[in-house]
């Protein structure tokens, strides 16, 4: 094998609801062992894409492959290697936490009891409580435990941290997801759709931003940080009119100007320096800032 089988491979995916294109020609590739961010505004088509990936929705056109397999034709093989946490977590209200985990485990050939115990302790989930009596956050925690314990090769998370308090959220992202990937380096992939981009900042290896069902930007996270930068400049008086190609004024307040640049930080910096600012500084954008900048630019262009 000259090339490694991709964890996810989506080619020109189109999914329509009536006359509405939820996903419109999306393509992306997730190599194994990576944590892949999938970002977009509400209604951008993230959940629809994920559902096509899981064979919960049929693509109108285009193709979807998980570990090189068609999820519609090789459903059991695909599903055996992945776990999914939906945005709306649902459980059978009559089951206790213990029953729910037993039920989920009954479908799996592998289930890590130690992980289950550790996570139950970590989240302080009462195993005897009925799922119908759990809080929203506790339900999400339970869904996460049920997804992690079978040790899947691919973890698909759709807004996984909604409803979690900040402490549990941080714990989950850093400890659980990190530990999950670290347990089998290079083998376990995470495909995460979230609005809390900053929370996943340190974990994301690659990401795709979509808007109106189309890909807007796909980048390696480090490359993105190197490419998208912001420049602060402070002048002695009022700033001069600034219009540089490849740069956008993000904020102008008093003597300060903040610009966002896309891959040409040094040249913009040099041109700013020609106006003799008192201070000038370059910083990498966070993923969240890249997301906002990208979609604002797209929106402005539209």
């Amino acid at each position: 094998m000259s090339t490694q089988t991709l964890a996810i491979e989506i080619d020109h995916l189109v999914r329509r609801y009536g006359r509405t294109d939820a996903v419109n020609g999306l393509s992306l590739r997730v190599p194994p062992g990576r944590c892949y961010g999938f970002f977009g505004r509400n209604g951008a088509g993230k959940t629809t894409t994920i559902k096509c990936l899981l064979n919960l929705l049929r693509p109108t056109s285009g193709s979807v492959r998980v570990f090189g397999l068609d999820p519609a034709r090789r459903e059991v093989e695909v599903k055996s290697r992945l776990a999914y946490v939906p945005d709306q977590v649902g459980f059978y209200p009559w089951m206790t936490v213990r029953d729910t985990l037993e039920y989920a485990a009954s479908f799996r050939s592998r289930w890590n009891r130690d992980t289950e115990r550790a996570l139950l302790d970590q989240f302080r989930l009462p195993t005897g409580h009925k799922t119908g009596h759990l809080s929203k956050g506790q339900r999400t925690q339970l869904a996460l435990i049920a997804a992690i314990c079978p040790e899947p090769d691919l973890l698909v998370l759709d807004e996984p941290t909604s409803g979690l308090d900040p402490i549990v959220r941080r714990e989950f992202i850093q400890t659980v997801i990190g530990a999950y990937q670290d347990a089998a380096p290079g083998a376990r992939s995470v495909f995460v759709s979230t609005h809390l981009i900053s929370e996943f900042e340190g974990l994301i290896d690659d990401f795709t931003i979509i808007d109106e069902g189309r890909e807007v930007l796909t980048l390696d996270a480090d490359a993105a940080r190197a490419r998208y930068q912001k420049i602060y400049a402070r002048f002695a008086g009022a700033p001069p009119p600034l219009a540089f190609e490849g740069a956008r004024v993000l904020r102008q307040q008093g003597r300060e100007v903040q610009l966002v640049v896309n891959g040409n930080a040094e040249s913009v910096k040099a041109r700013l320096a020609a106006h003799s600012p008192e201070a000038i500084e370059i910083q990498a954008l966070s993923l969240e800032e890249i997301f906002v900048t990208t979609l604002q630019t797209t929106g402005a262009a539209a």
Partner: protein
Amino acid sequence: MTSAVGIQLRKEVRALLPALVVVAITLTAIAFLARLKSGFPHYRNDLELWVAIVHGLGVLSLAALAFGHELMHGTMASLLVQPVARRRILLLKMVVLIPAAVLLGVLADSAFVNYYLWRARIQSQLLVWGPVAVAIGLVPVLTLLTRKPLGGVVFAIAIPGMIFGVSEYVYPLRDGAEAWWITWYGTLAAAGIGLLVLWRAFQNLEAAGDGSARASSRAAIATDRREAAPRHWIWLLVKKELRLQYLTMTVSGLYVVACVLVMAAQSRDPEYLGPTFYAVSALHCGFVALLAGAFASAEERQLGTLASQVLMPQAAWRQWLIKAGVTLGLAVVLAVGLPWLLMSVHRPADPFPIKDELVAAILLATSAAMYVSSLSSNSLWALLASFPAIVLSLLLTTGQLRPLKLAIYRWLPVDQQRIGAIMSAEFRTDAWPARRAQLDWISWWQSDAIAWIIAGVALLTMFFAARNHRSLDRSVRTIATQVTTLMLLFWTSTIACLAIAQIAYNAIR
């Protein structure tokens, strides 16, 4: 592996168990009563009608729940991504559903003691095993296609109904039992086709969830772009309440289609009186009354809109009054107005009789269903629980009126001979009008007052329903308190009325 299948089977059984138990207990209770009342002169053929309704609706609801509980609890997507073939998931569900449906068939068969109403073998066969066949073959696939458990029940009822309508058109009933046989085999064939479609549909089942929401949000945006004319909140609330009842109106739409078929048969043969129209109308009437009530609260709770609706800056009691008004009004219009309209068009000389008792019965049944709905988390459960609730309340209230009257007559006996002698003496004298008024007053306490008591109990039921609708407290204790209060009100008031009448008789001098 075996234990894994065991766990999965246990979950499927648990999902159906409450409904199975409710329907089985109701059927057993009616069967027990039917056996008690099986001999002349106590035989009550209305029990057979109850068996038919409880069994039919119970077994169909059970089948809808087999797949519908995944939709109701939002677990369908999680289930479908489990690493097992979809056909195995489907088989597990059917392995649990089939014996449960057959069990209810056996219970229903034992509950039909005399088959007084349906004497022909084919009628009883169709009545007991027809719903079982429909439950197994049609309800699951229709539930999945409509994505609503109640939708599965409604459309599943419509299919054999349509088959019967068509076969009855070809072979009018008075010519023999052909129509029944065609319906039986047609239903079996439809169930077989349904199973094949189910097999295919489940393999390709989509768990969209967000799709409809997305489509509706786009529609909402499109609507917003149009110039929005300010509307009064009451009008919007009425529209919302009517929209909640779309399945009730769908049932009525199907009823109209069925009636048109029946009327076409009547036009073909003018001498054919068409009892089928009244049978179909009676079924439609009862079903629509309960369906409208069942949707009132539970559907909003299921949609997750109840809290935001109740918190709108309008008094909750006003909102409830509008809900109750729309629900009760719609039930009466669809259950009585629609048959009346159809008959008025079809046979102006022979209109559908609108009787006060019928309207009162519809209002009572809808109120009862609204109360059950106010306690239910989804409309299917509300509908399913309404039947046993109504049967039980009838058995515990009006069903016991006769023994109660006899007990009070024994407790406060009246010397009938003395009363008769007084009446004979005063008849055609000047004292008679006053005496007549006195007797009418006593008679009012004996009979009409009880109708007012029932109306009062219904009003209190609606009051409790309003409280349950806006409250999150739906504990067993709350329900027990409310039911006990309703029973106490009925019994104490009834006993008081009957006792007053007896005392008044004895006071006649």
